[in-house]
C-alpha cells in the first residue's frame, strides 16, 4: 500500500531522472545539462505553476480559499519555529546557523511541489486548483519569520541587510514569476489560456523531468558535503520535514482540503527552499555557513522528500482526512 506508492513515485519519470542523474554523477558520469538550461527550466516551471494556480483561482470561490490560506499562513509561522527550536536544542547549532537553516524549512521548494502534483496525478488523486497560491504565500512568510528570529537574537543591528533580504525575496525572480503567472491565469482564465496549454500544461512533466536531471547532479555534489555537516544535522534534515509534514497534513485536513490538497500542503510544509532562501540568507546572515544550510536543504531534505517523503505525506493525508 505505502510501499506501492513509494514504487509508483520512484518509477515516475521525474523522480527516476533525479535518481539516475544522481547515480551517474556519483560514478563521475557527465550528465550535467548545458549551462543556462537550469535557469530556463526553473523560470518555466515557476511561471507554469503560477498559471495553473491562477486558472484554478479564477474558478474557485473565496469560500473554498480563505481557510487553506489561513492554514498556509499558520504553517509559515510554525514550520520555521519548529525547525529553529529543533536545530538549537537537538542540533546544538548556533543561533545564526539555526536561524539560517530554519529559514529554508520555513520556505518551500517549488520543485518538490511540482513533483507531488505529478505523483498525485499518477495516483489519480484530485487536487484543489488554487494550491499554487498557497505556494507563493508560504515561500515568503517562512523566510521572513526565520529572518525575524535571527534579527531579534542579533538585536537588529545591521538593519539594512535585513530589509534588503526581504526585498530580495519579494522582488526575487521566483516569487515574481510565480505571482505573474497567478495574475495572468486569474485574469485570462482557462478558456483564453487554451492556446498556451501545449507549452505550459502539455510539456510540464517532460520539462520537469529534464530539470530533475540537473537537480540530481547538483544534489549528488552536495551529498559529498554531508560529512562536513555532521550526523546531527543530517538526522535533523530528515526529522524536521517529517514533523513539519505531519503538521502540514494536520492543517490540511482541519482546513477542509481533500486527500490530494492535504498531501500537497503537507509536502509544502515539509519541503525546504534552496533558491529563494539561500539568496535571502546569504544577504541577511552573511556569517551563517552555506555548507550547513545548503547541504541540509538540497543535499538531504530534497532527495528525502522526493523519494520517501511524498508517499509518506500521502499516507498521512489518507489517515487524517
Amino acid at each position, binding site marked *: 500500500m505505502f510501499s506501492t506508492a513509494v514504487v509508483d513515485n520512484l518509477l515516475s519519470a521525474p523522480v527516476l531522472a533525479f535518481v539516475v542523474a544522481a547515480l551517474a554523477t556519483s560514478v563521475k558520469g557527465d550528465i550535467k545539462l548545458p*549551462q543556462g538550461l*537550469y*535557469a530556463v527550466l526553473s523560470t518555466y516551471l515557476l511561471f507554469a505553476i503560477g498559471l495553473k494556480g491562477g486558472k484554478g483561482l479564477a474558478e474557485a470561490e473565496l469560500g473554498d480559499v480563505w481557510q487553506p490560506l489561513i492554514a498556509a499562513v499558520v504553517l509559515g509561522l510554525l514550520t520555521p519555529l519548529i525547525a529553529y527550536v529543533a536545530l538549537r536544542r537537538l542540533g546544538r547549532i548556533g543561533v545564526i546557523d539555526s536561524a539560517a537553516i530554519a529559514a529554508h524549512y520555513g520556505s518551500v521548494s517549488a520543485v518538490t511541489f511540482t513533483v507531488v502534483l505529478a505523483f498525485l496525478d499518477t495516483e489519480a488523486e484530485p487536487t484543489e486548483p488554487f494550491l499554487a497560491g498557497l505556494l507563493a504565500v508560504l515561500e515568503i512568510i517562512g523566510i521572513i519569520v526565520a529572518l525575524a528570529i535571527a534579527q531579534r537574537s542579533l538585536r537588529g543591528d545591521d538593519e539594512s541587510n535585513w530589509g*534588503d533580504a526581504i526585498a530580495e525575496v519579494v522582488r526575487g525572480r521566483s516569487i515574481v514569476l510565480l505571482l505573474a503567472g497567478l495574475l495572468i491565469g486569474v485574469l485570462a482564465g482557462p478558456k483564453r489560456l487554451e492556446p498556451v496549454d501545449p507549452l505550459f500544461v502539455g510539456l510540464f512533466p517532460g520539462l520537469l523531468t529534464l530539470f530533475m536531471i*540537473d537537480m540530481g*547532479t*547538483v544534489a549528488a*555534489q552536495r551529498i559529498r558535503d554531508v560529512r562536513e555537516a555532521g550526523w546531527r544535522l543530517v538526522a535533523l534534515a530528515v526529522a524536521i520535514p517529517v514533523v513539519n509534514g505531519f503538521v502540514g497534513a494536520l492543517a490540511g485536513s482541519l482546513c477542509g482540503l481533500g486527500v490530494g490538497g492535504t498531501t500537497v500542503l503537507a509536502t509544502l510544509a515539509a519541503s525546504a527552499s*534552496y*533558491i529563494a532562501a*539561500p*539568496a535571502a540568507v*546569504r*544577504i541577511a546572515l*552573511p*556569517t551563517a555557513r*552555506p*555548507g550547513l544550510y*545548503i547541504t541540509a536543504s*538540497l543535499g538531504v531534505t530534497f532527495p528525502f522528500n522526493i523519494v520517501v517523503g511524498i508517499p509518506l505525506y500521502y499516507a498521512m493525508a489518507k489517515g487524517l482526512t
Partner: protein
Amino acid sequence: MTTTERQLVTIIAESVLKKRLIDDIRRLGATGYSIGSVEGSGTGGRHTGDWEGPHVRIETIVRDEVAERILEHLVERYFTNYAVVAFASTVRVARPAKFD
C-alpha cells in the same frame, strides 16, 4: 599616440552580491563597469554550481584613488563572509577623462 595610465579593478564574486557591488563601485567613484560571468573554485572550497549560478566578474577602469577605495571597501565589507576575489592592475587608456 598618447595614452594615460588608469587602474583596472577586477572583482570576482558570488552572484548574489552583483547588485550591491555595482552600487558600491558607482558610489566610490567608478564611471562605468563591465560584467561577465565565470565559474570557479578557491580556498572556500565551494564550487559554483547550478543552484546558485556562476560568479560575476566585474571590471571597472578608475583613477588610482578610486581603485584604492574600492579595494579597501571590499576588504572591510565582503572579504570575511563572502567568496570574493579582487585585484588591480595598471592599464593604458586613450581617453582618460571618460574614467574620471
